[in-house]
């Protein structure tokens, strides 16, 4: 087992399992956020549930662990991969054989990480540690999106996340060996549809609350 986790394929399987886990997290997160459209009460209730429910509280720590594992493993794999070719080609045409998203996972990943830090600071830290005075959770969100710059950063981050997933989704199936030829096309298109759903879904919320202000 020890050898498995340090082997090239074992590490990729860790990458893909944490990736799947983060995908599930995104689905839950987006579902909660969409309640913003149902008005203040629905959102405050959903938010209250997330803040108090026991299972969710435990999941928070597992989620943090999942992120950390994914990030550390992702960066460490990237460093190893770079060190496997010291002399670069003078002429190279990677766009002839692979997608932009697949070649730039580390960059979209790191930008999403920077966004994640900003995002945790904006909401999680404010709600948990700083306190938001007599504002409701709903008001906190709507206030934040009154700044066009803030909204723009969020939308860009969602698009980057979408690009990360447009390769990541199908890649995770391939890494675990679940990518049979029979399902290949289906997984590819489901992945692209899912990436668009995530990017558009989260962006729509940001833009909506930016414009109603």
């Amino acid at each position, binding site marked *: *087992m020890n*050898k*498995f986790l340090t*082997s*090239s*394929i*074992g*590490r*990729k*399987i860790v990458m893909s399992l944490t990736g799947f886990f983060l995908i599930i997290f995104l689905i839950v997160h987006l579902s909660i956020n969409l309640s913003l459209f149902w008005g203040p009460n629905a959102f405050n209730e959903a938010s209250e549930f997330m803040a108090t429910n026991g299972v969710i509280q435990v999941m928070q720590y597992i989620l943090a662990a999942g992120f950390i594992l994914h990030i550390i493993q992702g960066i460490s*794999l990237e460093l*190893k*991969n770079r*060190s*496997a*070719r*010291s*002399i*670069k*080609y*003078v*002429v*190279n*045409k*990677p766009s*002839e*054989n*692979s*997608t932009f998203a*697949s*070649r730039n*996972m580390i960059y979209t990943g790191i930008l999403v990480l920077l966004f994640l830090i900003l995002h945790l600071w904006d909401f999680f830290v404010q709600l948990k540690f700083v306190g938001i005075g007599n504002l409701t959770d709903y008001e906190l969100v709507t206030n934040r999106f009154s700044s066009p710059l803030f909204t723009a950063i969020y939308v860009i981050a969602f698009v980057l996340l979408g690009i990360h997933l447009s*390769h990541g989704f*199908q*890649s995770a199936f*391939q*890494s*675990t*060996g*679940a*990518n*049979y*030829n029979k399902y*290949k096309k289906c997984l590819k298109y489901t992945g692209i549809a899912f990436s668009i759903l995530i990017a558009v879904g989260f962006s729509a919320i940001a833009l909506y609350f930016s414009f109603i202000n």
Partner: protein
Amino acid sequence: MDFTLKIWRQEDANAQGSMKEYKVTDISAETSFLEMLDVLNQNLIEKGEDVISFDNDCREGVCGTCSLYINGEAHGPKKLVTTCQLYMRSFKDGQTIYVEPFRANSFPVVKDLVVDRSAFERIQQAGGYVSFNAGGAPDANAIPIAKEDAADAFDAAECIGCGACVATCKNSSAMLFVSAKVSQFAYLPQGRVEATERVLNMVNQMDNEGFGNCTNTGACEVECPKGISLENIARLNREFLKANVVPK
């Protein structure tokens, strides 16, 4: 046809290499890429210069000896062919062509365009075989094998071990090669006997040779001269997972 060639020259494994410019003229469109290099070498010999070293053997696309990264692609711009089967008609008259060796730390340059691909041999030795007593010739149909399995095994067995997958991969990963070598046996009952040790040992050797990790960009499949499918990598991952989690 006339061409300007920019070719990687490197005295030996430890020397510092660089790109050098050469001209070739009056090359017919039907000349293969390697024959064009032969013409250039003939010119160099006549001028008393050191010839350009490059690997080649069968020159009919089956031995896996020729290599070369031509204008930014392994085995050149044409898909599903090796460098020896690439003809100058695939280029434009007067074009500048960059010729570099396959690059990966696990494939060190020996001289000029020749690289040492013995890492592949060591991976093969770690498990790319089946063990049985040859004895007398067995009956051809003693072990029934489904047509599709035989066909898939054969598709995987088409890998000629050229290393274009490693050269192309942004991570210098050898996964396509190893997956083909594991898959060609994984489909067949004779191969199942040693399947567990095979996948564990071959992946272990692959890692020890210092190849990078696969990130599923799929570049190898596009540039592979034999069209080895990415599905083989999915199968390799499955075989590896199975070998690790299913108790023997």
